[in-house]
């Protein structure tokens, strides 16, 4: 937490502002020019410093895996992607230094000029869904209901796997499906290819579907 300079600066500004404000509230000095100047720092300049640096620190914090899995229904996703022995696509990417502890954000962030904004708006949708629909559920109840809102775009994979590297081109399936991969008509994360990034979630979906089918077929 205190390794982030923005956080340190923000907390420092807040601490100085708090000392000045408590002094003002305790001593109750007359409203002279000096008091106004002190209050300008305590109510204006220092809190603005805290807010500005706090926004940057908060933005950094919202990109971490710890933040994403702080909602209990996301715990299995975070646990799997940070598990060193897991072979899921998410875990293998999480072990990559370029993804590190921001692997959720790196893969799920939208691309493009306003990608950050649309990603954050999507995050607010997650908060809405969690607060109204998932907060009361257990992880087992929630897992079959959690699904990605739009299919995972190949463009996200192509950001790093450019489809141009000789090693990538050596794979026969890549070569034969190149145009369809680039067009996004064949998903990198489809079952015949690399499979879903979070396979345990797919297992939960299949189990829930089987249970529903069995319930429908059961004699009443």
């Amino acid at each position, binding site marked *: 937490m205190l390794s982030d300079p923005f956080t340190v600066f*923000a907390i420092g500004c807040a601490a100085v502002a708090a000392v000045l404000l408590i002094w003002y509230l305790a001593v109750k000095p007359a409203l002279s020019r000096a008091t106004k100047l002190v209050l300008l720092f305590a109510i204006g300049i220092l809190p*603005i410093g805290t*807010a500005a640096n*706090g926004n940057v*620190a908060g933005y950094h*914090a919202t990109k971490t895996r710890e933040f994403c899995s702080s909602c209990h229904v996301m715990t299995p996703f975070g646990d799997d992607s940070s598990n060193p022995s897991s072979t899921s696509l998410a875990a293998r990417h999480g072990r990559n230094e370029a993804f590190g502890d921001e692997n959720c954000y790196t893969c799920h962030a939208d691309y493009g000029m306003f990608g950050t904004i649309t990603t954050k708006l999507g995050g607010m949708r997650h908060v809405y869904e*969690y607060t109204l629909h998932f907060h009361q559920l257990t992880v087992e109840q929630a897992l079959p209901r959690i699904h990605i809102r739009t299919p995972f775009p190949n463009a996200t994979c192509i950001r790093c796997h450019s489809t141009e590297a000789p090693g990538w081109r050596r794979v026969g399936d890549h070569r034969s499906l190149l145009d369809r991969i680039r067009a996004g008509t064949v998903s990198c994360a489809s079952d015949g290819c690399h499979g879903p990034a979070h396979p345990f979630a797919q297992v939960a979906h299949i189990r829930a579907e089987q249970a529903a089918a069995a319930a429908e077929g059961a004699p009443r």
Partner: protein
Amino acid sequence: MTRLLQISAVLTLLGLVLMVWSMIAPTPMPVILAMSVGQLVGTLAFGMFGYAVLVDQLRKQRAKGAVAAAAAAAAVTSIAQAAGEAAAGPAGSTPAGSAPTVEAPP
């Protein structure tokens, strides 16, 4: 104005607490609260401070203007009194209504 500034100081402290909480425990609820309620409360407090200072300044200027006006009025009154006394003049001096004599230059 003092009460307004005290409320403003308390609101600022509340906003700061929310912001610091979001940095100490960066989970969704504190971060969302800090970036919405915390900043709204902080902005409101700063607005109240600006209003209080502006009103105080205007009051002081008005008071200063009133003092200046009173001083000017007093000065005018004293000048008028002095002029009246000069016009009445002491006994044996230039009679009232006659123009003072001016000696011609040599």
